């Protein structure tokens, strides 16, 4: 038989469906429209996952601004000895500094102005700022040697979220929506929620959850507190649900007439699009309604759990979304840019997140979901050992530092009670086991059953992948 004809036949019905006939929010699919013998989810790439995934979903707690690694996790008692001494040139070693401190005359080292204690079975240092996270230290892996080339917010946060400092590339969540599709047709595959701390807030950009060159349905959908958790979700004042229903029935009838006339499958998709929108008007408010959460669960997330728009409230919502099949949930908490007044402001920031983040891990665990949910917690870079501005008895600041910073992960095949990577005595350079932010991305993809080299999208003549063209690796050492 003609080999080309064979190839043609090999283009299966499934590929046709997944490429041609789909309709998505984020990535949700409507195979039933085309009478497919498909499971409820899918609509990702047919070849995915590449291997058995450990994680079904990811919850990424992103701390925007550059949380201080030195004052939270990357502690060594010897730091106390170098307090107030000048950072040796041998340590800085030609590192480029931001325009904010490159003109500074002195670079006095600052030991954390917080107490550190050892916690958990392995005696892991955790700052007094994070007592709740200290209590789950046996559940998590702490990576102390995450690093990036970027030294300023915009390029750094774009880099870690989209795999490059250049603009126009898809975010990690968009890649996953594109590759894996959605597990719930009523909800997007990729959801973003934002909360604000009391420190200086750096800007966020839609590109951080954007779809770049991928089809735009893969962009992250922002969920917000208030009457319209999804933009334009609520019927306007004066239009009640029964009116909307009758109007949509009329709409469907006329669209059906149009389908009969023109026969375009797009019209079929349009009919379904409106039904799904109507269903979202119920399913999303249900999702956002925390009144069914018992007090003991709310308590896990700390005192702000019931306050809409807080990081704590967003953490519970993240769990509820995870339960409903949202596969990539990203929380941005703002305010981690402590160039000055660090001792006071960092305390506020940690207060915001300590209880909720630890509570989320505990809650997932008690529901048996931690086994297949990957929780990631970190920012775009860390902060310098030296003080930005004057170092006084009880005050100082720290500038941006990309050479090493701390991120922690939990669940979905990540080692429990584990620390990875060693920095030098000044928390300035990596001594052992570097983890580039690309490695971090490759590892996240790996846990989702994706070979980062094989998740590609052709754009402008190039096969793009989420980690870019530079080499990277899966950090297998942190995996069970």
């Amino acid at each position, binding site marked *: 038989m*003609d*080999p*080309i004809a*064979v*190839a*043609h036949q090999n*283009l299966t019905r499934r590929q046709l469906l997944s*490429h041609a006939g789909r*309709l*998505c*929010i984020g990535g949700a699919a409507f195979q039933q429209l085309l009478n497919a013998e498909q499971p409820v989810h899918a609509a990702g790439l047919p070849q995915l996952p590449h291997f058995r995934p450990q994680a079904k979903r990811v919850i990424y707690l992103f701390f925007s601004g550059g949380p201080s690694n030195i004052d939270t996790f990357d502690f060594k008692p010897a730091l106390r000895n170098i307090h107030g001494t000048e950072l040796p040139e041998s340590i800085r070693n030609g590192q*480029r500094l931001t*325009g904010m401190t490159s003109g500074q005359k002195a670079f006095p080292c600052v030991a954390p102005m917080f107490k550190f204690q050892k916690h958990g079975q392995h005696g892991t240092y955790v700052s007094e700022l994070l007592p709740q996270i200290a209590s789950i230290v046996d559940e998590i892996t702490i990576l102390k040697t995450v690093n990036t080339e970027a030294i*300023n*917010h*915009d390029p750094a946060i774009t880099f870690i979220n989209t795999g490059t400092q250049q*603009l126009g590339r898809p975010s990690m969540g968009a890649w996953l929506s594109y590759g894996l599709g959605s597990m719930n047709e009523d909800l997007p595959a990729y959801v973003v929620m*934002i909360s*604000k701390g009391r420190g200086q*807030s*750096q*800007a*966020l*950009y*839609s*590109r951080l959850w954007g779809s770049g060159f991928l*089809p*735009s*349905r893969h962009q992250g*959908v922002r969920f917000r507190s208030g009457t319209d958790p999804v*933009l*334009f979700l609520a*019927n*306007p004042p*004066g239009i009640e649900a029964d009116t909307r229903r009758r*109007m949509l029935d*009329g*709409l469907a*009838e006329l669209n059906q*007439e149009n389908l009969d*006339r*023109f*026969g*375009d*499958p*797009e*019209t079929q*998709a*349009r*009919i379904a699009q*409106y039904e*799904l*929108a109507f269903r*979202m008007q119920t399913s999303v408010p249900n999702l956002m309604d925390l009144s069914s959460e018992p007090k003991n669960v709310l308590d896990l997330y700390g005192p702000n759990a019931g306050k809409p728009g807080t990081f704590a409230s967003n953490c519970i919502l993240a769990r509820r979304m995870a339960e409903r099949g949202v596969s990539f949930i990203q929380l941005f908490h*703002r305010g981690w840019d402590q160039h000055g007044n660090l001792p006071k402001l960092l305390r506020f920031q940690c207060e915001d997140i300590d209880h909720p983040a630890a509570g989320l891990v505990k809650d997932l665990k008690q529901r048996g979901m931690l086994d297949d949910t990957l929780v990631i917690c970190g920012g775009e870079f860390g902060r310098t050992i030296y003080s930005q501005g004057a170092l006084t008895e009880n005050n100082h600041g720290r500038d*941006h530092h990309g050479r090493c910073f701390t991120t922690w992960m939990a669940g979905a095949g990540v080692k429990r009670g584990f620390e990875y990577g060693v920095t030098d005595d000044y928390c300035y350079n990596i001594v052992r086991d570097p983890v580039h932010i690309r490695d971090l991305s490759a590892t996240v993809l790996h846990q989702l059953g994706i070979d980062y080299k094989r998740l590609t999208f*052709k754009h*402008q*003549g*190039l096969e793009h992948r989420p980690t870019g063209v530079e080499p990277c690796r899966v950090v297998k050492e942190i995996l069970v």
Partner: protein
Amino acid sequence: MLQKHFYVIILVFSLLRSAGAQERVDFNRDVRPILAAACFHCHGPDANHREADLRLDDRANAHADRDGSPVIVAGDPSSSTIWQRITSEDEDERMPPLETKKELSTAQRDIIRRWLEQGAVYDTHWSFQAAERPALPTIQRVESATNPIDYFVLAGLEKRGRKPTKQADRETIIRRVTFDLTGLPPTLEEIDRFLDDTQPHAYERLVERLLSSQAFGERMALTWMDAARYGDTSVYHADGPRNMWPWRDWVINAYNNNKPFDEFTIEQLAGDLIPGDDVRAKIASGFNRNHGTTDEGGAIDEEYRVEYVVDRVKTVSTIWLGLTMECGQCHDHKYDPLTQREYYQFFAFFNQTEDRGMQTRNGNAKPFVDVPNFRDQRLLKEREPVLATATRALASRRSAAESSFQSWQSTTEPDLRRLPPNDAVAHLPLDAAKTAEYRDLVNSDGKITANGETESVQAHHGRGLKLQAKGFLEVSAVGDFDNDDEFSYGAWLKLAKNSSGAAIAKMDTAQSFRGYDLHVQGRKFAAHIIHSWPDKAIKVVTKKDFAPNQWRHVFVTYDGSSKASGVKLYVDGKEEEWTIEQDGLTSTIRTDKQLRIGRREKGSEFRGEIDDIYLFERTLSPEEITAISGRDPIQPILKIATGDRTADQVNILRDHYLNTIDEKYIVLRKTQERISKEVDALRKPITTVMVMKDMGKPRMTHILERGSYASPRKDEAIEPGTPAFLHTSDQYPKSRLGMAQWLVDPKNPLTARVTVNRYWYQLFGHGLVESMEDFGSQGSFPSHPELLDWLAVEFIESDWNVKHIWRTIVTSSTYRQSSRVDKEQVPSDPANLLLARGPRFRLSGEAIRDQALAVSGLLVRQLGGPGVKPYQPAGLWNEVSLSGNVRFKQDSGEKLYRRGMYTYWKRSAPAPTYMIFDAPTREKCAVRRARTNTPLQALVTLNDEQFIEASRVFAQRVLSDGGATWEEQAVFAYRLATSRRPTDLAIRVIRRVWQSEKTKYTARPDLADLLLKIGDYPLGKQDKTDLAAWSIVANLLLNLDQTLTRE
């Protein structure tokens, strides 16, 4: 996009199948794509990563003998290493290597085999060969063809035994072509006129009307704005505001004036370099300032400056050449014959500009130019002669009034009250060239001592005194006043930025500040008259602030009443309102400290300039102060005998006479001033726009190692140049201007093809070349290569006539086909690549919103101007903005109803209505928009305030203009939304929905009130339950598939 690739695969397969397996393979169509995808990465143009010194993209290299073991033996696959390697059973031997995961399919191998058998013929990549006008193919259905486009399309269909679809009906085609050429729906009048036009060429006339409407330029500009990464903000970090809209307006006008595409290109890429200094061309060059710029405190200037140049290369190569040149930033291109050196040669064209890496978060960054008020140029042209007439009338009245002036000047007596008083107790004119030579003109015995830094400088008239650090004058034996004395004092003052201090003081600071002064307090003037500070003292301060760096006459009068109300402050001869800060003076202010100019006895040092100091031992009248301040120059002249007055003095009197006494002159002057003001305003630039500007001394370009700004290969200078694999640029200057001219050289094989392909995409939903951004070897092969070339040659030979190409395409039979989907043909060509039916696709977000505004009658058709901020949900900006303090401030009035393309484009948080409908963020060049259908889109058109308001105003329109009966109203509404007459079913459904909601809102008028309150537009006077019910129907109609889609 993926799905389109997939269709291309199916199409190519079906082409091959129908043509039979023994047909000759075409290198460019069949073989190159396989080699490019699987082999070029290691055996291609990139010399640094080339394995085994093998280039499969190069015929000579690929066919080389290689010491007797050639990779390719023409006509003999089994002797060719390439065939042995790609079919090897040994996994380590087999190509492509396993780890690249680029395994060849059986079908692909078969193509390679046949290619080898047929002689392994190479050919230059199709898009790098100049396009030639192909002969029209022979077709059977000549009657179906309107113009050459149809010949090529029909030939393709007939080859596969397929038929075109019949032409769309008139209601459908007017809607399609109106949206395609203007982005707006046709009005009912336009539809009816077209339906009633039974003359031949009604459609062609319709097309002409649309092509000449201003909306054509707007529609074309919107697509160009995506490509040109246009925005109203700066993208990086703070993403602050900027003014690039004059560039956007230039684009609209260029399309409307049908500026040839070559000029359109040259002006945008190098308008600043075109001789002649045309400000419009400079504005056009703003094209390459649209990219994002940073203002982040820690950013490194050079890093971003390089980033901007990289962006320009990428944007220009994508838009004009359809090449992925950016690959060359780090290494030789892997697939196309572009070396890294050539990349930097091209980069060098853009590497000469003045703009810096660190730019601003607030407004336009240098270089920029003033934008004249183009819009009102015609008005200006009208008003300028009117101004000239008014000015002439003024001059002739001046002559005519001369005799009455002469009699006035010889008979008018001076008003003594208005003469400067001559009883000063001290007058320091400070006109001497040296401060040591200062004299008191009244009291010649008094001693004036200069201390500290004092300097005689040029003052407003004559010289004056400049006081700097610790400089002051001491004047002996004057100004010895008490609290029950009348006295006045003051001077001319010119304040510096911070002048706070005592300009004139006789004050004993050690004795609770006893004495008096004239004090400068920031930008206010104050007087202290003190027995003891603070409670036994007077202090008054002007309410107004006075800007520094101007000479002002400041005077204090005091009537000896010991009350603040007895103090007056005059500035420039005019009494100023003041605030009382102290009013408790009880007894003597006398002190033996000397009068000081520039400070008190101690401290309160005044910095600035001072001139013409006077002291009087009485309260001066307002007229006297005006006279002293020189504000009334008339009286002193009148005092001079008529014959003794100088010419200048007579002129002053004449002006005074004409301006205040001659009534005819006064009227004429007012008219002239009004017109003059108007003309001045019209001449004033309306804003600035950022432009390109090369540096005086060219910047050296170097290859950047791995593309990094920090690693230039300094040992070698790279001169500007164009890639060698394309036509030569030797005849052009080695500048951006020359580069732009090279782009639109008729020999350029890419520019015309790439451009007409984008036009085709805009009209058919997909390009003839699917990979619009990549015409290189990794791109797709055209579905209709001859048609593409015919259009490209037609474009060039029509002198790049944009409207001509659009007219040609939309008047073709191919374009005018019905979009009805034939169930039989969908499976073989679901994406309609063969063009057997008309194009049907969802409208853009902008068009959907514009349509809702147009059918409701809300749309405001103003052309151009600054971006507008219509409704959007609260909080979207400040939730993400730097420090959370950039808030969206919604506009009101007409700005709520402008076309969507004018919506303010904040690139870190673009307007959600459009983003949800697949608009790009415009942070980077985008030449295509996805067309998805998502429930989030349904929520926009169902619930967005803009659409709910439009539904309500649409309802108002239906009730007021829709006719007398319900049926007439329903037909009117349906036609407005869909451009076609409703079916019986449609009427039935509308009636059912209308009836149910009428019932509901009658029972619940409170809900009707809530619904009708939405939006700023005034509510109609109609019955509220009617309006509410029709609003729901309108909302339904605006959400119909037919409304959202252009058939």
